[in-house]
């Protein structure tokens, strides 16, 4: 069974903290994605990676960075968390040329 695992379902962090969201996939996929989901705004792409150590900005990269040191792991970093980063964060992976994306269950992050 294919699996994308996000390290936390719920997180509460304080303003200004450095936050790490971890994602691991077991399908040997080349592509990995971080999306942010907010009501009425859909899934907005923050960053994606198409290979180890390769990354590309999505539509809303400001305030975020990413790391992909190994093929199976893709980390999203909030350098200094702010309240407007309170959201649901979804990780996904896919393989080229099969473009189906598999999603994790999401991390609900609250910044207080």
């Amino acid at each position, binding site marked *: 069974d294919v699996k*994308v695992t996000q390290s936390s379902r719920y997180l509460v962090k304080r303003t200004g903290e450095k936050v790490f969201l971890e994602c691991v996939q077991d399908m040997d996929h*080349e*592509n990995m*994605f971080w*999306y942010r989901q907010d009501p*009425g*705004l*859909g*899934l*907005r*792409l923050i960053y*994606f990676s*198409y290979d180890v150590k390769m990354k*590309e900005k*999505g*539509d809303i990269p400001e305030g975020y960075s990413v790391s992909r040191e190994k093929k199976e792991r893709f980390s999203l970093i909030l350098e200094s968390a702010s309240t407007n980063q309170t959201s649901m964060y*979804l990780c*996904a992976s*896919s393989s*080229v*040329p099969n*473009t*189906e*994306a*598999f*999603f*994790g*269950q*999401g991390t609900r992050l609250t910044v207080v």
Partner: protein
Amino acid sequence: QQQVKQSPQSLIVQKGGISIINCAYENTAFDYFPWYQQFPGKGPALLIAIRPDVSEKKEGRFTISFNKSAKQFSLHIMDSQPGDSATYFCAAYSSSNTGKLIFGQGTTLQVKP
């Protein structure tokens, strides 16, 4: 040009009715159009997808209609059931764009018994 616009934002349908969700895009380089279904507390999962060389694809009660000239595509759910109540996202992908998948804004569907 990278946007995918989805409507309506929410939809209420009686059991047995037809649910219709519409999406429009601008970028003619998009060549794969999937629909994802998301239940509360879960990540989205692929429901059905179409490529622009066909105008319709049907899988059970779910049908995608694709209009290449109008740059629009839609999801039809026939004989809608309460178990279909979920959030639906359309998406678009360009094989020339290193796997980047762009999503619409989402539609929350409620099917009343």
